[in-house]
């Protein structure tokens, strides 16, 4: 029972981490929280479901298309709404925070409302990636679809982490996060990096939305909880720390799934808040907070 709960917690946690990774990268590079992150997830879910059901696009195309949709949205949002703040506020963090919170929160509501107008308030179940009889994995019954989804999520998660740490591209992103002007001096186009990071984050969140659309049917407001969990995770892991996002995501997944059996199933979404309060109380800089710079 315990091991099976652990496994299912780790599975959920992988998807949380996928979302939180993008969010924490955005924070690292731009020093802002994207309050429309859940809507990237939602857009990914809907793109996948609608392409498949309404246009008959095969899954192998619909899934990359969903990632692309999230990435494109991230790209546009950064260019249109986030970019201007760097021209206007210079070094003033206060004005920038103000603007970023207001604009991304408004964007979140706009996207939810617009999606409700387009597809209605209902939820639509997404197609399975592959069909087949369930298998046993450490005592947990998982469908081949879940395994496939998990595999793709893990591939993207570790692929992104690998690139961040070992590729020139990733080290440049980390350079921008650590010292914007020094990165520019050495020849990194910081504006471009910011756009790429936003697009990557959008793509990763959209991927999570698409992969989960069979288990959690997308509705216009489906992104709220995945987003809130990623907020908890990035604080838990340390704002701006990619490794923290991974560990934090897995940890939250496990805690929720343990809480679901030992405390109460219907309140499982609330354990994140308890965890958040504990982190703020005991280790406000997060698990990997020592690598966080002062702003």
């Amino acid at each position, binding site marked *: 029972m315990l091991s099976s709960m652990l496994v299912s917690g780790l599975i959920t946690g992988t998807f949380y981490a996928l979302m939180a990774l993008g969010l924490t990268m955005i924070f690292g590079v731009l020093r802002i929280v994207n309050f429309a992150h859940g809507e990237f997830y939602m857009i990914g879910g809907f793109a996948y479901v609608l392409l498949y059901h309404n246009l008959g696009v095969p899954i192998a195309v619909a899934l990359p298309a969903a990632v692309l949709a999230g990435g494109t949205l991230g790209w546009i949002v950064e260019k249109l*709404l986030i970019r201007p703040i760097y021209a206007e506020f210079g070094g003033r963090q*206060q004005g920038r925070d103000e603007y970023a919170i*207001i*604009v991304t929160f*408004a964007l979140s509501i*706009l996207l939810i409302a617009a999606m409700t107008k387009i597809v209605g308030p209902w939820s639509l179940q997404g197609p399975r990636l592959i069909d087949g009889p369930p298998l046993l994995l450490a005592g947990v019954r998982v469908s081949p679809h879940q395994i496939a989804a998990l595999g793709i999520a893990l591939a993207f998660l570790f692929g992104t982490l690998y690139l961040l740490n070992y590729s020139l591209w990733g080290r440049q992103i980390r350079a921008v996060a650590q010292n914007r002007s020094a990165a520019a001096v050495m020849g990194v186009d910081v504006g471009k990096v910011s756009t790429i990071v936003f697009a990557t984050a959008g793509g990763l969140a959209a991927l999570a939305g698409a992969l989960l659309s069979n288990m959690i049917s997308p509705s216009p407001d489906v992104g709220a909880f995945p987003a*809130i969990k990623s907020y908890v995770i990035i604080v838990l892991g340390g704002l701006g720390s990619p490794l923290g996002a991974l560990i934090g995501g897995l940890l939250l997944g496990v805690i929720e799934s343990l809480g679901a059996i030992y405390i109460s199933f219907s309140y499982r979404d609330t354990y994140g808040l308890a965890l*958040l309060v504990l982190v*703020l109380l005991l280790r406000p800089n997060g698990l990997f907070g020592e690598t966080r710079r002062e702003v």
Partner: protein
Amino acid sequence: MASRVSSLRRPAAPTSRTQLLVALAILAALAPLPSLGLEIYWQGVVITSLYYALLASNWNLLAGYTGLFSLAPAGFAMLGAYVTALLWTYAGVEPWLGIPAGAIVCAIVGLVIGVLTLRLSGPYLALTTLALAEILRVIVLNSFDITRGEIGLQVPALFAHQSSYYYMFLVAVGGFLIGLHWLLGQPCGLYLRAIRNDETGARARGVRTVFWKVFAFSVSSGLSGLAGALFAHYVIIVSPSIGHLLVTGLVMSMVVLGGMGTLLGPLVGALLVNVSSEYLRAAGDYQHIVFPIVVILFARFCREGLVGRAAMIFNARVGTQARSGAKATEVLASP
């Protein structure tokens, strides 16, 4: 410490009471409408607008004057409403006790959240309040046996006639704005604005920034709870929809549209947004599409809001210089 803050203890910079007077004039103009035959339906619209004006002014106290961003104004209103509703349902506590109890519970929750998050620099308050607001809603929805979930709880009405609520909310908004104007003229109001302008600078000059931030957040949470509890006894059914994030979105649009950091802005914004919401809703539920767009456009191109812009023009006419946009907003940020 007192000597170190002496430079801040000067009386507030000479500022116009005009905004307060205009706000009171608007309220006074609204007052006779029920007796002049305003339809019950539109009376309801005005009452809701005034309820929103309370939430918006409260949020403005945080965002506009102190530079704190809470994403739970609606969440606290819902909490306040549920406190009085639960007390009534399970302990038979009368509203006149339940309403203040709601405010106190919210102030305490605000105090705890404030102490947890406001010691830290970073976006922790916004993150935590968002999580709190949504999770409170989930708890209410899931505790069906106690809260009856989405169906909601019935609470007693305070008055027999709708016009009585109308006057009550008029008085509440007027009282709140007068109180806010007074508060901002006190040293404490100066501290709050100093924190918004330059927190490090304020701390370096001896302002206990964490204390005052927590104070502002706790007071504002309590007052949001109070507004929610009052509203509960007007709508008579307390349901989780009071605390929806969409409501927070509306409150934010009212303040941004009216003018952050202006006394009059939230009231003007609340009336504009809520009344036009009626039409947008009738046209097919466009309010949650239109207002976020308005917010984004204002945040981008008109950060001082309608009242801020109007005051800039007014000041320029009168001859007070308002050179750059940023400077003008700072001038207006005073009460």
